[in-house]
């Protein structure tokens, strides 16, 4: 086993040559300790010439990373061979170590993360995970915010009142999800409040008028004052911190939305220091199975469940929710707007309750809320990181099928994800209320 090192831009780049096994790892471990003792705590380990790694090698890499993490440093791996990658995967270490294609990309990643200035290089970083590959491209380092309109509770207990409906000009909104309606007169639209989302500025709404036929509205004239009326809504305020290209390991079957978020949560931890365990995502993806749910009637006071329980309570759920499993459209393209919270690592704050109803003794590891506009399969035009262009292309040229509140077990094959590391959740003050 040979070890070489050089310092570039303050980062200690170590090349290992040979076998990192139980025999050699003792010596290499001591070498790592001496680096730490001499003040290095940011490392890139180049595996180009490492042809063998066993648990003893993983042990010293873990020790190194633990020491560095305490000092605000990191250990990044590059040029990892497929066999070694497989060992890291089986050992559950791909969510501990970031793996980069080569030393230059790993080196850049140290500066992109720490540099608040916009980075204009188009560096992509690749992560191989057990469910597929994720390629990240940084877009901006704005503080990602979410605004919440109305009360989560009003929706969950069907207690929306006319005077708690907020109206908002459509041209202010680009990516949202929640419940609401379109229309001029409150008396007309109030009883039809249903699932609603805005994606790329287009409104997709399923009125609860009993027909279950979605409305799909592309505002042609941007000056026209079209208003969206809503009782509960989550608004993503920023464009994306990062764009991620995802491809499932098995592209024909895909992987569950739940697993995609789970991986995104894990990968996000290594990408920004201010990670708070909350992500918002806008996706343009090819989907496999669609498991959807939709509300059947308007969640308004008049319709409130007689037992005063939530509409999702076991005695109410049949009356309130339509569960749909779409086997007909196995090959579709979806535009998804969603938000997710990693219950293992999120920063606890009362603001979370604006978005999710978290049951303290629940066993779930994450909570997700996603709405999807579903189209007939529509191929990507450029296979690029230009998410908004691709979304516009689907909206303008795709064949719209319907809209769903997506359940977590729906499956995703591949596509582009616009990711925001949500830092702030704020309640929108009543600006334009239509109190009647």
């Amino acid at each position: 086993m040979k070890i070489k090192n050089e310092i570039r831009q303050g980062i200690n780049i170590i090349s290992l040559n040979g076998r990192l096994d139980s025999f050699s790892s003792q010596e290499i471990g001591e070498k790592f300790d001496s680096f730490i003792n001499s003040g290095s705590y940011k490392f890139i380990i180049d595996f180009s010439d490492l042809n063998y790694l066993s648990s003893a090698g993983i042990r010293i890499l873990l020790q190194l990373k633990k020491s560095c993490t305490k000092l605000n440093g990191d250990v990044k791996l590059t040029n990892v061979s497929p066999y070694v990658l497989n060992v890291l995967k089986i050992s559950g270490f791909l969510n501990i170590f970031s793996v980069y294609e080569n030393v230059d990309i790993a080196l850049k990643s140290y500066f992109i993360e720490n540099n608040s200035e916009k980075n204009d290089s188009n560096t992509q970083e690749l992560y191989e995970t057990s469910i597929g590959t994720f390629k990240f491209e940084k877009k901006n380092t704005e503080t990602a915010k979410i605004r919440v309109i109305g009360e989560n509770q009003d929706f969950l207990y069907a207690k929306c009142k006319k005077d708690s409906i907020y109206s908002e000009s459509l041209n202010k909104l680009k990516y949202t999800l929640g419940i609401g309606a379109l229309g001029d007169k409150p008396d007309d639209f109030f009883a039809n409040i249903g699932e609603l989302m805005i994606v790329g500025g287009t409104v997709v709404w399923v009125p609860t008028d009993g027909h279950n036929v979605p409305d799909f509205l592309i505002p042609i004239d941007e000056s026209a004052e079209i208003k969206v009326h809503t009782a509960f809504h989550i608004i993503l305020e920023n464009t994306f911190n990062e764009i991620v290209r995802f491809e499932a390991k098995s592209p024909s079957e895909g992987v569950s939305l739940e697993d995609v978020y789970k991986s995104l949560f894990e990968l996000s931890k290594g990408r920004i220091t201010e990670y708070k365990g909350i992500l918002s995502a806008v996706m343009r993806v090819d989907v496999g199975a669609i498991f959807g749910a939709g509300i059947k009637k308007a969640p308004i006071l008049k319709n409130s469940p007689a037992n005063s329980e939530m509409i999702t309570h076991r005695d109410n759920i049949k009356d309130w929710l339509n569960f749909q499993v779409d086997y007909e459209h196995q090959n579709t393209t979806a535009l998804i707007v969603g938000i997710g919270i990693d219950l293992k690592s999120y920063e606890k704050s009362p603001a979370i309750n604006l978005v999710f109803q978290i049951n303290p003794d629940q066993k779930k590891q994450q909570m997700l809320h996603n709405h999807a506009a579903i189209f007939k399969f529509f191929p990507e035009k450029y296979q690029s990181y230009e998410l908004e262009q691709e979304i516009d292309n689907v909206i303008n040229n795709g064949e719209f099928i319907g809209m769903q509140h997506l359940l977590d077990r729906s499956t995703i094959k591949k596509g582009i994800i616009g990711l925001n590391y949500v830092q702030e959740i704020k309640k929108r003050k009543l600006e334009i209320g239509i109190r009647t």
Partner: protein
Amino acid sequence: MQKCFSMKLKNELEEIIRMSKLIDKFGDEHNITPDTLYEINLALEEILTNIISYGFEDKLKHNIFIEGHLHNNILKIKIEDDGIAFDPLSIKEPDLESNIEERQIGGLGIHLVKTLMQNISYLRENEKNVLILEKLLKCTEDLIPIK
């Protein structure tokens, strides 16, 4: 069943290198694919490292025997030592999920062996640990399959 390799090792970690050369030679002779060979090497190292590091309470020299047998395309590797009784199948599954601060590494070696081998059996016999690993072999396509 055909005996294809055997070796007597001392209870020193250095012996891992000699063992890996033996396995590489076996791989060459039988056209085993590099991924399979890696996995066999890894499994043997994990087991031997455990025995060498924790198997002996005295400071004396001990011998560990390994022996490979081929049957169709299954490789059976027998590992025998006279250390303290230890059944690798009895240890609990390692932590594969927690974050960097809490991550522990105990049990990882055995987890790798269990994942990469098709079968493992353990026996305590005549004051000796006898472990048998079974690995389904993949050979490079263009060459004669193993008989």
